Each structure stands twice: as C-alpha cells, then as structure tokens.
C-alpha cells in the first residue's frame, strides 16, 4: 500500500514541478530563446581573426566574472550602446565619402556609418525577466582563476584630473576609449560607465592582459605598472559616479 502511495506522490510531484518552474520566469529559457543567437554563451573566445570578425555581440560565457549584477538588471531593461563602434568595429567604419568636406588641416577621416549612428537595437526585458536572466548570467564564472589572483585596493585613490593623465598621457587609452560622451576614440567601450558595469577585479585582470580573456582582441597589453593599475581602476570607479547627462 505504502509503495503505491509513494508512487502516486512521486508521479504527482513530477507533474507539478514543471508547472512551478514555468510559473516563475525561466532565465535559462530566455537566454536560449532571445540571447544565444547573437551572444556566445558557451565559449571559448575567438581564437583566430576570422572567428573574431564573426562575433555579433559581446561574449557572455564569462558574464559572472565580468559584470556587476545591478548594472546588468538595469541595462537589460533599458539597453543603450556601450561601444560607439559596436562589438565589431570593422563593420562600423567606412572611408570618408567624397562629398564630405575636408576637416581641419585638409584631412579626411574614416567615419562611423549605418546603424552605428542610430540607437542600439536590442531585446528589452521586463524587470522580472531581467532579474532572472541576471541570476543565470552571474552564475557563469569559468575564469575564476584569473579573478582570484587579483586584489583590488580601494586605498589607492586618485582625483579625476590625475586619473585623466593616466588615461590620456601615460597610457593613451583615450585614443580608443571615451572618458565622457563624445570625448575619446570610438573603437573601445566607453570608460565613463566602466566602474558601474564591471567588477574591479575584472578590470584589473583585463587591463593587465586582455589576451587572457579574449586572445585576438584589438586592445593591446600596455604593460601597466601594478600601482598605476590600481589607480586606474579607482579612477574608473570614481568617473562612473559623475553625472554626464546633468546638462
């Protein structure tokens, strides 16, 4: 008798479980249906230049090592462009059209064109969906070893001006990255939101050697000194607290 009762209970539980799961938002399912066709969720990162060019969106297979959860939740509800020239800048640039007048000193520059001049087209999630997806993304931590060896030191404080000197004059990051909207290069991700977006340990590790995370990426290893590295990350966190849309 007890055996039959157990079987009945077990079969009922088996029937009920999927219902419970579907009642709540399933982050894994959303990722498979709406994210995975552009984002790489499995890894590894592109190993050749040709693979690199096929990338449509940032790799998310190490999202848990990289992003801050609160930013992810906020961003997925209101997606905006993080890299002015997109993930794959070769698709975003074009030679200056002949019709365009020459700029100062008679020089013409390559320009961004097409969809990269318009706001980002991206899936928009509801708050519940964003929370569920963020939970799944934050559990993806394949590069734990790289993060574990980094120690962020918040005591190495710098002012905004000092930080800008590191970014502009000492290491020249500003050639590719913007430190405020419209101020800096296009091919890198914007730095004025980096402190909000990324975990400090990730920033330390990525700046130290970008190749460890993305073997073929066009960010060079600048051989940044340990002390400067801490200062730069402190600066990026300080910079992200500025309000650039105040005016």
């Amino acid at each position: 008798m007890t055996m039959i009762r157990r079987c009945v209970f077990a079969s009922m539980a088996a029937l009920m479980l999927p219902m419970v799961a579907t009642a709540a938002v399933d982050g894994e399912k959303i990722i498979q249906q709406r994210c995975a066709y552009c984002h790489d969720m499995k890894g590894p990162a592109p190993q050749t230049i040709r693979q690199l060019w096929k990338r449509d969106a940032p790799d998310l297979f190490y999202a848990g090592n990289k992003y801050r959860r609160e930013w992810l939740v906020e961003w997925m509800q209101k997606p905006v462009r993080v890299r002015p020239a997109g993930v794959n800048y070769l698709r975003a640039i074009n030679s200056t059209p002949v019709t365009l007048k020459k700029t100062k000193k008679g020089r013409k520059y390559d320009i961004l064109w097409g969809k990269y001049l318009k706001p980002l087209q991206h899936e928009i999630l509801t708050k519940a969906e964003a929370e569920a997806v963020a939970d799944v993304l934050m559990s993806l931590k394949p590069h734990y070893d790289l993060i574990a060896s980094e120690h962020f030191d918040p005591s190495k404080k710098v002012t905004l001006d000092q930080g800008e000197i590191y970014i502009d004059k000492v290491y020249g990051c500003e050639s590719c990255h913007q430190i405020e909207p419209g101020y800096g290069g296009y091919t890198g991700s914007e730095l004025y939101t980096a402190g909000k977006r990324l975990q400090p340990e990730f920033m330390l590790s990525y700046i130290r050697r970008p190749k460890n995370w993305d073997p073929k990426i066009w960010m060079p290893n600048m051989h940044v000194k340990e002390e400067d590295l801490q200062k730069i990350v402190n600066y990026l966190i300080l910079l992200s607290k500025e309000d650039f849309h105040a005016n």
Partner: protein
Amino acid sequence: MRIKMMIIAAATMFMAAPLLHAEEAYLNYKTYCMQCHGMHGKGNGVNVPAMNILPRDHSDNAYMMKRTNTEIFKVIKYGGPALNKSVKMPPWGDTFTDHEITELVGHIRSLCCEKELIRGVNFR
C-alpha cells in the same frame, strides 16, 4: 608530362606561399592598425579626431623611406616610446609574434614604397 606537372606545382607553391603570408599580414593590419592608421593606411583612422597626435601616414613615401625596417619592427613591438614617439602607439609585442611583426613590416613597406620594392631597395 609528369615532370612538367611537378614543375608547375612547385612554381605555384612558391608563388602562393608569399601571397598567403601577405594575406595574414593584411588581416592583422586590418584588425589592429586600421582603427588609427585608417582603412587605406593614410593615418586617418576612425579614432583620429579624438587624438592630439596624428598617427603616421603609411603612404607617406618621403617619411617612410627615412625609416629602417628594424625601426618599424621596434615601434610595433615595443610601442611609440621605444623610438621617442608618442605613447598613443601601443606596444603590440603581446598580441603578435615576431614573425607576424616582420610580415606586418613587409605590408607597411608595400603601402609606402612599392616602387622601391620593385627596384629592389634594401631597407635593412
């Protein structure tokens, strides 16, 4: 007949090998250098308007002829400061192997000094 075929095969192999290398160098140039040095290597890349120092125009024959291959190799591998140039030229030593840098130097020579290459100038 067979000997003829072998000769043709050998000839195509000899011709194809440098072409393949040239393609790899071009891909590297396109991926890493183009963002600043421009789509046609004229020093007018998409990032340039934000810079206070302009990248080198690789098609500038008069300037590039004054530079040796060793200097170009050095500046790619160790960055601008290695030749008392700007930090805006980063060190690419961690991105490329020495062999890839040598090929890149060859590619840059093809942008600036095609006539000299045909004439067989020794760039050292």
